């Protein structure tokens, strides 16, 4: 099923491009998403390339290499920073190419011999410093942001899928179906969202893998957030359904499915698109808030909320923690909000609006 873009929509897209602030925000955000997909190549304690005894290794995406693979005595994962230092010392032909930030988000790496928050250091390649247990903040920030971003995109997709289906059905079918669902939604939306997430998530056993737990958290959040979208879609569908073109289509003999997907939905696009950025913002905020309260992603998963929490607890002694977490949050949320404003504006049928 493909939504054919009509000239109206194309015009809207053109107009979106013309709104520079929103357009560039969009480009930057997309760039961030693409870069974050390649994050393992940029921020990782595994080397990009190792040349050892004439053989090339690319450990980034493969199984782990025990230290014995590279002439260490230990059988756990090779420490590639040590390896690089060793090769340099030996002066052999072996070499290691490390990512620009050679730390994983979970490893404790200290130079002072004590696990504590250390300020940013170019020399140590801790560009944003370390957190209270000497983990690289840039790495944690990066992977934390990635999780939050993809989490919110997944959230968006799920909330929209449910919200649009239910909302459109309510508007299109009407009658008792509409009445019933209105009541269901009224009741459902009165359940305090954050509390429910906290309660449900606290009984999820920790035996699940972290990715499963993230999926469950997502499912739970969607379960309590899909309602807001339905009302907008319901009104919008009602409105469109009463329009002459829908009656015309029906007279021609178009099926309900055809009317919904070809006529009604494309005309509600403005509503859908307008709410998108705000849904993303709310998802990022919610997952950050949950982590901040300690009910979100299980440790040691990197997360913005956990960093913020550490930051506020160490405002005076380690301001760099809160600065980086807060800065990232501000940047991401601002970008998304700018995009949202631009989208809203470009979908506004009146080009010049004067508020009185």
């Amino acid at each position, binding site marked *: 099923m493909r939504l054919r873009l009509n000239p109206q929509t194309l015009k809207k897209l053109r107009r979106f491009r013309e709104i520079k602030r929103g357009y560039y925000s969009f480009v930057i955000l997309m760039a961030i998403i693409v870069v974050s997909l390649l994050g393992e190549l940029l921020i990782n304690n595994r080397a990009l390339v190792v040349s050892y005894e004439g053989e090339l290794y690319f450990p980034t995406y493969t199984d782990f290499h*025990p230290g014995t693979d590279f002439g260490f005595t230990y059988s756990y994962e090779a420490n590639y920073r040590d390896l690089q230092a060793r090769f340099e010392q030996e002066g052999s032909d072996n070499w290691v190419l490390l990512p620009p930030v050679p730390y994983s988000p979970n490893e404790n790496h200290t130079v002072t011999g004590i*696990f*504590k928050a250390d300020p940013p250091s170019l020399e140590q390649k801790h560009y944003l410093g370390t957190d209270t247990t000497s983990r690289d903040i840039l790495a944690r920030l990066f992977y934390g942001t990635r999780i939050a971003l993809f989490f919110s995109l997944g959230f968006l997709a799920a909330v929209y899928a449910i919200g649009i289906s239910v909302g459109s059905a309510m508007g299109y079918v009407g009658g008792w179906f509409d009445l019933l669902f209105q009541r269901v939604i009224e009741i459902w939306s009165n359940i305090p969202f954050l509390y429910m997430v906290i309660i449900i998530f606290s009984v999820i056993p920790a035996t699940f893998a972290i990715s499963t737990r993230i999926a469950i958290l997502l499912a739970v959040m969607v379960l309590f957030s899909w309602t807001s979208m339905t009302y907008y879609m319901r009104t919008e569908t009602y409105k469109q359904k009463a329009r002459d073109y829908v009656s015309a289509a029906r007279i021609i003999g178009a099926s309900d499915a055809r009317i919904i997907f070809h006529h009604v939905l494309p005309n509600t696009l403005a509503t859908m698109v307008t709410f998108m950025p705000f849904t993303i913002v709310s998802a990022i905020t919610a997952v950050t808030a949950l982590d901040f309260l300690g009910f979100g992603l*299980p440790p040691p998963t990197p997360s913005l909320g956990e960093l913020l929490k550490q930051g506020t607890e160490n405002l*005076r002694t380690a301001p760099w923690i809160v600065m980086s977490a807060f800065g990232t949050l501000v940047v991401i949320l601002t970008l998304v909000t700018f995009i949202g404003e631009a989208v809203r504006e470009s979908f506004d049928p009146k080009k010049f609006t004067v508020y009185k």
Partner: protein
Amino acid sequence: MTDLNLESIHMTKFSGFKLIVLALSALLTACGGESEPAATATAPTTGPSGSEQAQAYYAANPDFFSFKTAADVPTDLVWEDGAELPDIGSPEAKKGGIQYEAMQDYPRTLRHVGPDSNGSFRNWILDNVAVMLAHRHPDEFDYYPGLATSWAISQAAKTVYIKLDPDARWSDGEPVTADDYFFLFFFNRSEHIVAPWYNNWYGTQYTNISKYDDYTISMTMSEAKPDMLTQALEHTPVPEHFYAEFGPDFVDRYQWKFVPTTGAYYIKDEDIVKGRSVTLTRVENWWADDKKFWHNRYNADQVYISVIRDTAKMFEAFKVGDLDMFGLNLAEYWYEKLPDSDPDVQNGYIQKSVFYNQRPRPNYGLWINTDRPLLNNLDVRLGINYATNWDLVIEKYFRGEYQRMNTAFDGFGEFSNSAVLARPFDIDKAQEHFAAAGFTQRGPDGILTNAEGQRLSFTVTSGYESLAPVLTILKEEAAKAGLDFRIEVLDGTAAFKKVQEKQHEIQFTAFGVFLEMYPRFWESYHSDNAYDDAFLEDGSVNPARQIEVQTNNLESFADYEFDQLVDQYTASSDKDDMVQLAHQMIQMHHDHASFVPGFVQSFYRIGHWRWVKFPENFNHKHSDSAGELFVHWFDPVAKEETLAARRSGQTFEPQIKIYDQFAVGL
């Protein structure tokens, strides 16, 4: 004492029992509601008073409650009164001033027993304030008198005779008499208090209490233990006159009523500001004001305790002078948030003190639930022991200030088995043991797997949010040995619930251990507390046994031979015999490898404003925290002076002091 220290993370004194009490009583309240719906309807205002109920109870149990005459006290007793012990506190202490304190949560009740009564607020109304018959001397370990003037043991009769101090008064002015000790037993054996642990303890550990006259009593124990005095003397009586309306609705009726105290501080009704603050007020002409062991203590006129939910905010409140003292046990606070170079420290406004103490240590470590698959394998457990890098945590996270704990029973003097040492972090040995258990292959992420493809992965649960970094460090290190720890940090209550239901695989926790002579084994290591019916008659494992929930046997530790030793230990009244048994059991527990000993902290340290004064040697040898014994006092002149100096920029000599007179092995 403003709590930011490890001691405050685990529960306080008595928590070994209090833990059980809390969970069981919660359960009972839930059930009780259904079986006794009319309980609250039958308000006992019209029924018999607490005193009348007690009299009826005494009459119904004549073997337990005996009324005798003064002539019945044996004449050959050797009376002790602890008079030779040194004073507590400093003779320089001055009375007066207000102590400003903070607590994280508002207390949920002012009752001493029953649901929710074992929160940390209990310290302010009971554990650190109320006077008992006698107390362990914080330097000498022997007993010094409180409500008793002297006591005598009759080993053969398993009885302790006690003479009460006729001066003793409740905070409402009523005298404390023998009747209040009788009432103590009636009260604690009553089902109305919804406290099964107390019901059990007072129902099984004692066989008799006798009154000879208003100020002479005796208690008879079911076993003549070496520390029989503890059992007899560490009691605070229960005021009979206060519980006139005692009945099935006790829990609700007395929820917010302050129980008259024998101690120096009481709470006025108007000083209970729900959700915000509680103020303790010193009893006027307190009966113990001139007593040898009490006259230098409890010096502040009032203690104002307000709710500050966040430790970071609490610290800020201390920094501006709204709180008098702040615990600096965590290295982060001692070195970074209030470093020696801090202007307030350098200018002498805030003083920093470290005090090394000696007492049994809370047993921080990993408690392995041996009922779980894989964890029932000795080799897996041994592997976990070798794969847990506490040494690194101590060295790098705790900055080398803590020490490795060797057994779960450290700090009990000769009862501790110093020959047993904790297993060090050793990847090779860990892998040897894991291989013996069938885990030979490393998976793509470096975690070991066995032939069936099962990963060597366990959940480590903890309720200590502030110690979560410890677990993340252990996780990273364990991965080197091919062991995966999944970390689950819950809030304190949820974690406690989980471990009480025995749903955990591995739990990072500790039981509070209070100042006593020898360790307890039954609670945590007897099979009675692991399974409903652990062994068949011939000592072999009962295949149909069910796990026993709501007990402190967190390791599901069940060993037939060990049970026999515990029983012998419990029944024994010979100290040498008990020492030998304890050593044997500690060795067996070590061999069983179901506990990974963590760390011990051999000091406490605080920051306090210049106007808070401590004795010359700061505190006493066995003290648990700086505020516990109330030996500090407040100097109002110094307060004015310091605040004025702070405004004008005048400075004093900085005071950063280390009191290591009781440090061991430094």
